[in-house]
């Protein structure tokens, strides 16, 4: 759309002028995340759930748990699948129908952060080897879009999984059967947290809002675990990062991730 690209160009000029004065369009510092609030247990019918609000970006994550037949090559592990969807209520430009490439990327990056961190010890989720395992599905629904969906989905997913309850199953005649009203805590090993940074010209800013998101040159999402180690990375956008940029981004993600992790921990101990 030609008209919006002119507006984008004007917006970009304004944002860039402000960055030169070390200011951001919404008044934050370069390494400052928008206000994050997380409520867990918002969907009682789901085995785990969380609503994360990052500034004006909002995501609802729900966890469903059910016995599954394992993949042939991983019969000794449970199953974990995270998805993400941008609902049409979230933004005027969202269209219904099959997911577009950016939405597929969002879902896959969300999944990768959880999976690669080994947040949940999948070996403890086997009901009968090669026959039946516990399947965990975490579906993210973006309900309001003000940029940086990657992090909002990451926080909602981590909080929902961290606070979920896994139903007890017993094998009866080779069929997994739910034991009513008995639940286990999930075998959580670490809390993965992603931090997304945008590069605009030579400036690097944390947690870009939609205005910054729409004009950024490149972005990088770095997921760290509770030990502060990096467990997943995703670079996007049409520009590149220098070596120095990447070192700096790694440091920022560890520092910011630490604070976010505390908010997630608090949400599951205070609420629910």
């Amino acid at each position, binding site marked *: 759309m030609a008209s919006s690209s002119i507006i984008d160009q004007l917006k970009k000029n304004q944002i860039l002028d402000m960055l030169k004065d070390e200011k951001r369009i919404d008044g934050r510092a370069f390494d400052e995340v928008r206000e994050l609030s997380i409520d867990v247990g918002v969907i009682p019918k*789901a085995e785990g759930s969380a609503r994360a609000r990052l500034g004006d970006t909002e995501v609802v994550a*729900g966890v*469903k748990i059910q016995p599954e037949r394992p993949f042939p090559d991983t019969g000794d592990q449970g199953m974990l699948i995270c998805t993400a969807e941008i609902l049409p209520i*979230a933004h005027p430009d969202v269209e219904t129908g099959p997911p577009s490439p950016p939405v597929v990327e969002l879902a896959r990056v969300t999944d990768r952060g959880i999976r690669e961190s080994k947040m949940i010890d999948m070996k403890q989720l086997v009901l009968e080897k090669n026959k039946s395992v516990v399947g965990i599905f975490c579906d993210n*629904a973006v309900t309001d879009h003000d940029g940086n969906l990657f992090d909002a989905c990451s926080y909602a997913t981590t909080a929902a999984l961290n606070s979920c309850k896994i139903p007890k199953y017993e094998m009866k005649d080779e069929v997994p059967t739910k034991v009513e009203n008995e639940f286990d805590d999930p075998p959580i090993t670490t809390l993965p947290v992603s931090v997304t940074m945008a590069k605009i010209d030579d400036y690097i800013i944390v947690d870009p809002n939609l205005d910054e998101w729409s004009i950024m040159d490149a972005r990088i999402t770095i997921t760290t675990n509770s030990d502060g180690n990096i467990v997943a990375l995703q670079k996007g956008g049409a520009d590149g990062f220098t070596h120095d940029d990447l070192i700096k981004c790694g440091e920022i993600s560890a520092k910011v991730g630490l604070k976010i992790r505390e908010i997630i921990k608090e949400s599951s101990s205070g609420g629910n």
Partner: protein
Amino acid sequence: MGGRDTDIVLLDENGIRSDGRKVNETRKVSIKAGVLKNANGSAYIEFGENKILVGVYGPRDVHPKHMSDTDTGILRCRYHMSPFSVGERKNPAPSRREVEISKVIKEALEPALMLKQFPRTAVDVFMEILQADGGTRCAALTGASVALADAGIPMRDLVAGCAAGKAADAIILDVNNEEDQAGQADLPIGYMPNLEKITLLQLDGILTPDEYKQCIELGIDGCKQVYEIQKKALQEKYFTNGGTD
């Protein structure tokens, strides 16, 4: 609707239902208008255990263009259930059931809207069922008309939704999930209280002509109760604290 055998007592000897309600009582309904930042109008409704988020966009350009009408604006509705909204995970792709419900809700809202004022445009209503517990179409319809009013779309009336039905041989108001599964009939109603018009009506199950009359009467009564809560939600947003919009 086979009156399936279950252990649940749908109606005890004192006329109290499985969730503690009397036969002519609705579940607790709460509505908040204007909950989303980007949508032109929005509402969050809790109808018992149902939790539904509705967003309205428009009047706006129609894509694809061939859908547009030179005489009037068009209404498009999408009813969608989140995968985590029900006991077993639901496939996120729209089912035939969701397509049908989207259509009946659209036709329930159209009589209330004055879209002739906005030719060649579309008004989009998106209803997301975050948690389902029976009676979602009535709850979604109720939330959708509040969201449309919040979006400032000219309306002749609000449409309120509430079901009546039959369980344990009694005529009951606002059928919940248990009563829907194990009961004998479910008759959802959409109603415009000022214009006294029914705009949504479906029936699953068997009713005698007399029971049918009772259900309609009771259902309309439920809609009128829901209507008061709809008005309150809009008043809360626009008439208290001076209104921010």
